[in-house]
């Protein structure tokens, strides 16, 4: 799963790293109005680890994730998924990479309203023209507790259920890495807790790699590791976080941004 022959320029890289960025820089605009969203960020996401990216609004955490997931192109620096260097890929290859090796969970769920829950879950596989692995699919579906809802359309599901469909969709193709962008942002706390539980379970039980952007210390508490971003730079890192400790670090950012 890690190396696919269709991707050229496979680079030597540290084993056990699912995705990594090196000196990743992203700027918007030019000249006077130039804004640096990411400033030489180098970070690796280890296989089978649940990483949370945190930081105050506008710190660049979403941009980091978009670049790492191949949704956005960096201004400079490199991004690798497994051993594949993204900057060498054409749009078509990048699309294929997203389809086959990356899973996404969005804040706004982004399910297709015209498809049933099951069709939504298997959509990346269908697009790839692959047959879903029945056993795996059953396992994923039962894990997120959707067995009774597979024929429903998104409009007939609650927000929490929709996000569970999204989680199942991300897991269905057994991607190398899952990126979750504020997955609990649109959910009430109970549904949010459920979704976070599924993400953690997928890491623990299925060995999945998950990277999650969040601003919620409670959500970050589910992760194995939290990295903190501020003004486009990596400023801190915490292993085995708890909400309280994360909150403490966040408070120092707030204080810093207030004094600056």
């Amino acid at each position, binding site marked *: 799963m890690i190396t696919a022959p269709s991707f050229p320029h496979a680079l030597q890289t540290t084993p056990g790293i699912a995705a990594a960025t090196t000196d990743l820089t992203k700027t918007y605009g030019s000249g006077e109005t130039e804004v640096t969203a990411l400033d030489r960020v180098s970070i690796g996401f280890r296989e089978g680890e649940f990483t949370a990216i945190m930081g105050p609004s506008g710190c660049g955490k*979403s941009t980091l994730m*978009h670049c790492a997931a191949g*949704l*956005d192109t960096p201004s400079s620096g490199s991004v690798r998924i497994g051993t594949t260097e993204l900057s060498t890929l054409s*749009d*078509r290859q990048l*699309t*294929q990479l*997203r*389809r*086959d090796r990356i899973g*996404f969970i*969005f*804040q*706004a769920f*982004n399910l*297709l*309203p*015209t*498809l049933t829950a099951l069709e939504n879950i298997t*959509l*990346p596989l*269908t*697009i*790839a*023209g692959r*047959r879903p692995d029945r056993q795996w699919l059953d396992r994923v579906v039962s894990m997120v507790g959707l067995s009774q809802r597979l024929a429903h359309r998104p*409009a007939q599901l609650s927000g929490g259920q929709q996000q569970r469909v999204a989680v199942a*969709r991300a897991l269905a193709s057994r991607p190398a890495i899952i990126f979750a*962008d504020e997955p609990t942002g649109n959910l009430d706390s109970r549904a949010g807790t459920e979704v976070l539980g599924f993400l953690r379970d997928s890491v623990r039980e299925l060995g999945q790699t998950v990277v999650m952007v969040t601003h919620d210390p409670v959500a970050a508490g589910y992760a194995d590791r939290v990295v903190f971003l501020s003004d486009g730079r990596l400023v801190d890192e915490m292993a085995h976080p708890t909400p309280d400790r994360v909150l403490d670090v966040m408070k120092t950012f707030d204080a810093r941004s207030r004094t600056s």
Partner: protein
Amino acid sequence: MLSTALRNVLAHKARLAMTVLAVCLGVAFVSGTLVFADSTAEAYRAAASKNFAGIAVTVTAKESPPRAAASRQNDQQTDQQDGVLDDALARTLATVPGVAAVRPSVDGSAVLNAADGTPLRVRSGANLAGAYVPGKDGKDSKDGNDSRYPLIEGHAPTTSDEIAVDSGTAAAGHVGIGDTITLATDGPAMTKRLTGIVTTKDTRVTAGGTLVLFDRATAQKLFASPGQYTGIDVSAAPGTDQFELARRVTAVLPADRAEATTGAAQAAQQAVYVGTLTRGYAKMPMVFAGVALFIGSFLIVNTFTMLVTRRTREIALLRAIGASRRQVVRSVLAEASLVGLAASAAGFLLGLGIASVLPDALSTDGNALPHGPLVIGPRPVMASLAVGVGVTVLAAWLPSRKAAGIAPIEALRTAQQPPTGRSRIRAVVGLALLALGTGMLISLTGAKDASEENLRSAMLGCGVLVVALIVLAPLLAVPVIRLAGRLAGRRPGRLGIAGHLAQQNALRDPRRTAATAATLLISTALVTGLAVIGNSTGQALDRQAAAGLGADYVISTGNTTTGVDQAAVQRVAGTPGVRTASAVTDSTLFIGGGVRTVSGVDPDTVNDVMRLDFVSGSVKDLGPGRIAVSSTTARENGLRTGSQVNARIGRNQDVTTYTAYTVVGVYKDNPTAHDALGARNDVQRNSFKPGSVQRILVRTDGGASSTSTEDRLRTAVGNNPLLKVQDRRQLVHEAAGTMGNLLTLMYGMLAIGVVIASLGIVNTLAMSVAERTREIGALRAIGMDRAGIRRMIRLEAVIVAAFGTLLGLAGGLVSAWAVGALANGAMEQYSLALPWGTLLLVCLVSLAIGAVAAAVPARRAAALSPLEAVAEA
């Protein structure tokens, strides 16, 4: 609120551009047609007033009273018998006070052959002939020329062997000075030498006719009688009123034999004629305009509905902060007015373009429309504005009601509400209309004839049917598209998912899909209906044209007032390869208050050249005072074999004189035999030109038509331009020629429908793509490539197009079937014949238009970044 409307228009420029284009197209046809009609009428009028410019009064012979005519029944020259229009009268007229000049003329008609031996521009009323009358007493023209026909080459005809033609005729016929020309006025062909080329301003000639000028004596011999004229034109001295002069001229005329008409009256009469002519030409473009606007109105409704839906939150917000429903409605309608105004302006300009090309587009081979400067009166301008703004505002009315219905609370809703349907009302109304339309059509199947009333009900029924389909379309969309999807099968993989998503997207808002498809529905229904009826009628005409014909060739004059000369009949009979040459005299039959055509045939040979199917009686019994009638004539007059009927053949008889005829047979309707048959000698005695023959039906040995036989026959009739030598195929072709207009109409409608439908599809898809950016971004993020997105959008367009085409086909076929049932009563040979080729073409064009129209929205969708999935709403 007006500024809000203006800002909205500007904000949705691209969205509204398609609406503007659609309305613009309709307006262009309206204004183009009106400007064209005005310009053409003006051009005709300009030419016409030039024709009558120098003429104050024209003196012509009076129609002779019937009793006088009866006494001169055998006189060859029945029109100018009295000899009142002679040089003596001309001299008398010259002495009338106020008369400046007198110019006698001899007018008639003549057809001539082009250099290649084929008849040139033969068309009723356009093959003029006359006398070249040089000016007299130096009053007309100093060099003794005829000022009506200025010579540009050679010299005027002075002997009976010489003729002059106008420059247009010479150019079209590729003839020049010194050439020998074959021509005919009536009877046998003549050959004359071309000595002069003149110009003329007569519109009948310049619009694609011909002009032949003889010397005075020859013209008088041909068209009047020696020393006689057909008319005398009088010009007035300066300061003399036309009407006053007409009174003075009338005073010196023999009251019962000649009359005076003013030039102004003649010009006015011609203008009326020209007006009818032009109106005829304007009819088809006007139909196009109507179709374009009708179809376009669906596009308007759809666009504004989509805009209102899209702005739901914005409108709700306006309502929340205190705007009244009426203000919301007014804002939408103001926006529509602005769009209509822009469309009218653009349409008017486009219309000028249409008006300048229409004369060429409508001119056919021998029938050119006059050219002139574009005349832009207030009428086209007003009509453009009224039509453009009117249609747009009317069409936007429904969406504006919808906008008014938006509750302020919707400003607070995040998700877009799925369209709530009043589908039950729709279903009830739609089904009721469907029942009404079908009922009307079914009630007509029993109708026996295609009377005006029945036809009108049929049209209305078809219209109701199509409207019912449009109303029901949103309800039909789901089952039809689902079923089609199931039939197409769910293919796995990339194409499958793009198709599946496209299908689901098309079904997402069935009303929008239906409204988009409605344009194609209407045009497909129209074209299908026309194509089927046209094809069936065409085939019926084909069958009919050859139906009663046993002959291999028909030689004919084409009308009842000119004849085939007897010598030619003999020569045809003696041509090698000819087995039977049966002469037929056609004339009019006044029977039971109606006017019918009677054919005088030779009872001995007629069975060899006509396939007559006698219901009763026999053709052998024809003879003096004994006629046979067609079933229709028999039915109309209540005749049976053995009946006695009072009838009159020809016209050279007292109108009160009816002769008693015995009906000796009734035959099935037969276009070759016309409405009644008589013995030739009997008919000939009373025909327009007593003793003349109008057709020769020729049966050849072996029957096979070959060019050599045809050539021999042409030679036998002396290459007479007056006569048409046609085999069965050409006869059929001539009968089918009348279908040409229908074809133009059909393809014109298809083109208009397709253009507007593609605008509609572009519009709807662009809107759908704009509404679904997040969804498309998500698809891109989870791995659908650009090609997949493109395919999805394109397939959606094709599905919408296919849906519209399918319903249109259904509506068109049912309508054609219903109208066909009517036609069946009127046309013996009519049966429903499906033009598979045309129907296939219509389907392919419609589907292709879907794919093509989707190109731009599809590209735009494919260019969307996957980041759209995470963009802030």
